[in-house]
């Protein structure tokens, strides 16, 4: 950070300078959605920042109170639209916990494989758009080449390319055949070669390292205090991953993978590069999980009997019951809190979105950095405004 001390303005300067108020957003190429940050600038250096969100608020929680439990699943797709499989999983687990539904073995393994595939697709977008934020346009297209093959893989069982509505309370919508498993394994081998290519092109590029190391340093205490989770928290050195520490799906116990954590390789611990590198290594961990998942996929049903009846007549939850279920999304811990009073729909439905808490830190990280770094910090937090505003 020594480069910046030199530039801070000193009060004695006789030149009359005014503070520039700059609106970063809501229509801006690198706010990853409709986010407006009111910046007070002193030349290139940001002196104060205030986030203004709510441009994409679609009152999903009010709709949740008016539709049945099953009908709300497509709305969870639209919260974090880059990782909609994981959103479906979180919502289905909340409903199953609330109603005590039993999910067959094969459905759980399919859920794990599909949500890990969706995690890779989501991290690929984070990698691609981060390259564009720093100015390298090419990695984005390589990332989308892999993402396209994932989307075509997930399209076959679910029927949609991006908003799947595949994991529903009680199991999964449709079974998969064997050549789908073969294609998934073929994708995993192909991806490993491409992953090495990304690193030579962007991760180890000296300019990229200079632009991201020692920028936006998030200390562990601030990350915990602000409730940051996922790669943002792991980038600051906290080795915490719900899939391993509080497994919400049995298959995660029978699969071994390790949790990558930021080590401050190119600068202070918890800078933009660490968050970025944690995401890149998480992609390879997901590949390991998928391979083991495809090997151990058991046979059997994919949907509970109660659920097929649930399509016809919506199920009721117990009187006065409430359930809170946390799941590991690519961006952090997504949790749903459903409070029911016996009806077919909850009386209160709260979605705790990871990007919502990760974004709260932005106002602490931006002051003191330059405009170019501000864009790098927003990119490294990898926020999706669909789930920040819900």
């Amino acid at each position, binding site marked *: 950070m020594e480069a910046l001390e030199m530039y801070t303005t000193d009060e004695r300067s006789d030149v009359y300078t005014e503070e520039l108020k700059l609106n970063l957003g809501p229509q801006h190429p690198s706010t990853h959605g409709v986010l407006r940050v009111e910046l007070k600038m002193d030349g290139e250096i940001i002196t104060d920042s205030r986030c203004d969100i709510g441009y994409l*608020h679609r009152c999903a929680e009010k709709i949740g109170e008016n539709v049945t439990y099953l009908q709300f699943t497509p709305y969870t797709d639209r919260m974090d639209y880059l990782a909609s499989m994981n959103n479906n999983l979180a919502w289905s687990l909340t409903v199953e916990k609330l109603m005590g539904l039993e999910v067959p073995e094969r459905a759980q393994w399919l859920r794990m494989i599909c949500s890990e595939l969706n995690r890779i697709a989501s991290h690929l977008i984070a990698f691609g758009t981060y390259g564009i934020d720093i100015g390298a346009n090419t990695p984005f297209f390589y990332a989308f080449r892999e993402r396209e093959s994932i989307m075509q893989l997930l399209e076959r069982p679910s029927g949609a390319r991006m908003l799947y509505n595949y994991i529903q309370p009680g199991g999964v919508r449709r079974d998969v055949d064997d050549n789908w498993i073969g294609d998934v394994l073929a994708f995993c081998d192909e991806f490993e070669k491409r992953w090495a290519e990304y690193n030579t092109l962007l991760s180890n590029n000296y300019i990229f390292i200079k632009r991201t190391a020692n920028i936006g340093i998030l200390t562990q205490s601030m990350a915990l205090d602000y409730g940051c989770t996922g790669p943002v928290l792991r980038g600051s050195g906290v080795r915490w991953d719900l899939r391993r520490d509080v497994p919400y799906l049995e298959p995660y116990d029978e699969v071994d993978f390790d949790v990558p954590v930021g080590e401050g390789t190119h600068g202070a611990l918890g800078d933009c590069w660490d968050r970025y590198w944690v995401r890149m290594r998480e992609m390879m961990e997901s590949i390991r999980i998928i391979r083991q998942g495809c090997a151990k996929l058991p046979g059997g049903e994919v949907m509970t009997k109660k659920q097929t009846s649930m399509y016809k007549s919506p199920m009721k939850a117990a009187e006065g019951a409430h359930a*809170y279920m946390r799941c590991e999304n690519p961006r952090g811990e997504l949790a749903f809190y459903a409070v029911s009073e016996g009806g077919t729909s909850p009386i209160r439905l709260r979605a705790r979105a990871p990007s919502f808490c990760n974004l709260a830190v932005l106002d602490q990280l931006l002051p003191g950095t330059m405009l170019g770094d501000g864009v790098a910090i927003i990119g490294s937090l990898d926020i999706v405004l669909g789930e920040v505003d819900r």
Partner: protein
Amino acid sequence: MGMNEREIHALLTASGIDGVGGLEQPDLDPTVVLQPSALVEVMTLLRDDERLAMEMLHCVTAVDREDRVDVVYHVCSFARHHALTLRTSVAKPDDADESWHPEVPSVASVYAAADWHEREQWDLLGVHFTGHPDLRRLLLPPEWIGHPLRKDYVYPSEHGGIPLELDAVPIYERDEREDTPPVAEPRPAGTPLNQPPSAPSARPHAGGKAPAKKEGEG
């Protein structure tokens, strides 16, 4: 490894802070009931006591029931691998209408995460968190009137001159529709572009003619 909720509850009652109630619904999601006054003390104890070590406030939710308004806190610990749900509630007076705001002390001083969570609950449900550093609306435009997630919330017919959904009746009781959308009268010249509601208690739903566009659109 982690302590289960019953042990945590026992530890909390043993700590001598008055206002710690019983344990609710032990089978699904055990919840510790608290008086609003005991909130900040219990939260600081949860965060600082190394046996509990609740490093993170995971989520703050306000629930609008018939007779009361609950505020539910979920805290979790990474070191001890356990989590806890706490609930405080404010009874609703029978003449509770649009401008009634339950008062709950803010825990933003204990967990910084509470800052945005509490602002959102104030925005959507009108729970006034006393002691919050900067209690403004988070998601809705600053001059919005009313709190949408309340059960008795009536949809405004238009906002800032834009006619919203044709019928103001809540979605699930929609039977017939008016043909022509209400024509919004042009905003009289000279009304200031955007003045936020004066005190935290917003003006009653008067005529529904909210002043013009969201700040920052200009």
